[in-house]
């Protein structure tokens, strides 16, 4: 695409000016055509200075998740190499599901600035605001048995923590199994969906919605106590393509580690970030509620809760809440 090539030329020329004549010759378009593309880039948020007789200079790039912005930063071997970017989608997860069913390869990623439908666990919507966040879904095709696949939610949690730590310098915490918290508030929602037969995984789709550049006042009153963003925590604005590149890089690393070495290294890393260990937690499922002190996780990733009678319960499926943080 001419516009991507123009952008590349502008980057290469920096800090020199790029002459309109040169662009016109290189890309085989008229001077008026060059001007049209420059105008189009400006509309997309690129700041481009034009000086008569010198040419064009790229001053700054928009905080966008376009192909161009992501691939300029991506350092993965395969995750995200194939990328579908849409400025606005109903749900990145739905697109990834459709692609997976059509036979898309492992590593295909769908990314969007804004998600209208929002798809939380069991269809619960999560907060979605234009261009403050990142919404992405990644297709994985792990060669493990379906009963092992739930461990991937912990793999993702570890990857998210590392990525956020790399980018912000602040260490987040994990609440079992995969809530990522800063100061006790969620900064991303992870939804992991699997298409499987009883003995074979077709695909695992990992969906992550991240709060990046919202300010505290951008959250509704109801959400302020439970949601936060990277910016709200540190006061800094983040380039979202850079955050996303870090997320893909850490996710690829931990996923490959899991496939080759099993769950043990994931467990160690997960426990490093686990805020819930040693605290009193309440686990609610459709059929029962158990309150107890979190003892850790098992070799399979299940949460261990010791209730007041001393009985240890293995929690495999429940909503977990920290009910007392001082214990």
């Amino acid at each position, binding site marked *: 695409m001419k516009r991507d090539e123009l952008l590349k030329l502008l980057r290469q020329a920096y800090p020199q000016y790029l002459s309109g004549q040169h662009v016109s010759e290189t890309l085989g378009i008229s001077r008026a055509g060059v001007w049209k593309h420059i105008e189009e880039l400006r509309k997309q948020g690129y700041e481009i200075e034009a000086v008569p007789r010198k040419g064009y200079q790229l001053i700054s790039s928009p905080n966008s998740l376009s192909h161009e912005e992501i691939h300029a930063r991506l350092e993965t071997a395969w995750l995200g190499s194939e990328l579908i970017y849409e400025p606005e989608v109903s749900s990145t997860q739905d697109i990834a599901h459709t692609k997976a069913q059509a036979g898309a390869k492992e590593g295909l990623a769908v990314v969007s600035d804004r998600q209208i439908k929002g798809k939380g666990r*069991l269809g619960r919507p999560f907060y979605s605001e234009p261009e403050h966040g990142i919404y992405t879904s990644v297709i994985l095709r792990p060669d493990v048995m379906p009963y092992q696949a739930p461990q991937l939610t912990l793999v993702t949690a570890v990857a998210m923590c590392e990525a956020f730590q790399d980018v912000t310098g602040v260490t987040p915490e994990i609440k079992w199994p995969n809530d990522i918290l800063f100061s006790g508030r969620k900064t991303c929602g992870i939804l992991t969906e699997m298409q499987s037969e009883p003995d074979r995984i077709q695909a695992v789709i990992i969906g992550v919605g991240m709060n990046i550049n919202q300010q505290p006042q951008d959250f509704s009153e109801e959400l302020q106590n439970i949601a936060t963003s990277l910016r709200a925590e540190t006061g800094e604005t983040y380039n979202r393509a850079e955050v996303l590149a870090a997320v893909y890089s850490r996710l690829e690393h931990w996923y490959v580690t899991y496939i080759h070495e099993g769950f043990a290294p994931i467990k160690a890393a997960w426990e490093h970030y686990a805020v819930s260990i040693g605290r009193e937690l309440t686990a609610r*499922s*459709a059929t*029962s509620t*158990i309150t107890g002190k979190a003892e850790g996780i098992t070799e399979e990733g299940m949460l261990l809760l010791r209730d007041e009678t001393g009985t240890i319960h*293995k929690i495999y*499926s429940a909503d977990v809440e920290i009910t007392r943080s001082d214990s």
Partner: protein
Amino acid sequence: MYDVNEIKELIRAVDRSSVGELEIKGDDKAKLTIKKEGQNTVVQTPVETQIQAAAPAPAPAAPVQAPESSSGAPAQAAEEKEIDESLQKITSPMVGTFYRAPSPDSDVYVNPGDTVQQDSVVCIVEAMKLMNELEAEVSGEIKDILVEDGELVEYGQPLFTVKSK
């Protein structure tokens, strides 16, 4: 105390043998009795299996029980000769919570009487926040739904019976 997988392994062993009843008494594992009645297997154990605690052991003792088909083990086929031979089962590939619908206010995936294809999604089994959209892997008509919405299911537990056409 017997864990879920030990119990399952014992049931399978009794199932495949000509033994009608197995009783084990011991200090450690308390008491376990497995009786075979016709084609039904009855388990009596004082060990209360904690619903939440149900865990898939590192690796299940036996490979995933695929829906029983004509290629099933001869022993099994013999045992089940009184059951409608075209009735197949869809079993859970993992321990987790069984959901009949994608969300509480959505329509259920299937009802008894519905026709399913091999790739029809019939339910969700959730564990550790992973939502497994389970495909039927068999085609036919859903006869019975064997578990309640929101119930915790075991590895290999039958969830649906399907009458093939």
